[in-house]
């Protein structure tokens, strides 16, 4: 591949800048916890949604640029990403539903 021997240094530093910026935003929001985002939301708080989306953005940056998935053959990339994405979504969905169900069942039995 043609890009294999040219230097990508500049791009690497740009991605590092983006990842750092996202982390700073996350930590800042995590510390101040703005009430409008923290106390309201859909399913979970808006703040949690922001955290999850930013995390996925970071994961994309690391996998695509640092791990160089963008330069791999399409089906190697898909065999990795699709397997992970589908299996993990399935697992997490089931587990979280189950956790919520256990809470609904057991928490009325605990008196505070």
């Amino acid at each position, binding site marked *: 591949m043609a890009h294999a021997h040219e230097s990508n240094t500049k791009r690497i530093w740009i991605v590092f800048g983006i990842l750092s910026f996202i982390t700073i935003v996350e930590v800042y929001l995590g510390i101040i916890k703005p009430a409008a985002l923290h106390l309201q939301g859909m399913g979970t708080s808006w703040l949690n949604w922001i955290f999850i989306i930013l995390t996925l953005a970071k994961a994309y940056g690391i996998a695509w640029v*640092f791990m160089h998935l963008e330069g791999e053959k399409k089906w190697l990339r898909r065999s990795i990403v699709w397997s992970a994405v589908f299996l993990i979504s399935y697992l997490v969905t089931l587990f979280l539903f189950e956790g919520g169900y256990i809470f609904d069942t057991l928490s009325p039995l605990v008196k505070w």
Partner: protein
Amino acid sequence: MEANIAVPTDKKDIWNGGGGKPFGASYGKMMMWYFILSDALTFSGFLAAYGLTRFKFIDTWPIADEVFTHVPFVHGDFPMIYVAIMTFILIFSSVTMVLAVDAGHQMKKNKVAWYMFATIIGGIIFVGSQAWEWNTFIKGSYGAVKTTEGKLLQFVKDGKQIALADFVIGNRTDGRVQHTKKNGLWFEEEGTIANYSVAQVIQAYNANPEIQVRTELIDLDKKQKTILSREAGSVMLARTDRVVEGANLDENEYGNTIFADAFFFITGFHGFHVVSGIAINIIIFFNVILGTYEKRGHYEMVEKVGLYWHFVDLVWVFVFTFFYLV
């Protein structure tokens, strides 16, 4: 190309000692990717189990930024700052790793070696930070009491948590000593006992009218732990039977015991990955210096350990979010 033939006839898509390259990837690189995939599923299993447990105790789960508030060499309350610094260190070591891979593509041996070295140093700093974090977590900073049915009670003054040592006076008074093999049954041991007895804590509570009891229950309107009135606090305290200081696999002064278990398990498993990543990086670093890859004509090994190292960083990004932020 006859893709549906099980035994290839033209030797084009078999790995005969490294010649064939399905998907345009070498055997080693592809298998590193599939190892990473399976490892990613393992970590997702842990984090999903953490999620299940947290949902199960959603109304009493510890609030992470009240637990991780310390920074080495600095006194005071700095929620999440240190974890954020650790995240930076790991991301930065990922950058030096990818720069090493980049230098490898250009066959610049010295550059590869220096970037690998920086990566290893970053990894060591991260593991050291993690060890410090564990130490702080295990020692605990406030102390709490536990009721007979396992509910944890913490103490607050003006809405801020205070340590037992700040209001309980003197040393343990009930004469209780740690059970060791020497002074008791030779086949039984006991962990370190708390600095104070329950009776002492209750006495100190009664003597300080400005101190209140905080329970694990989260007030959903404010997303903060519930603080009891003085009277309700007395009622709860009457039901306590032990003092908890710090955290281990059995007890946890921050709240649910299983929170501590998950903390040790998930960050421990991740830390183990970092340690093995450092070990592999060191091996490859020496190979670079010895000129192994220069002779081989390519630096693909650096690329492969790079994949593993980035994966460790990738996992931390998720651990950071789901353990410390959400």
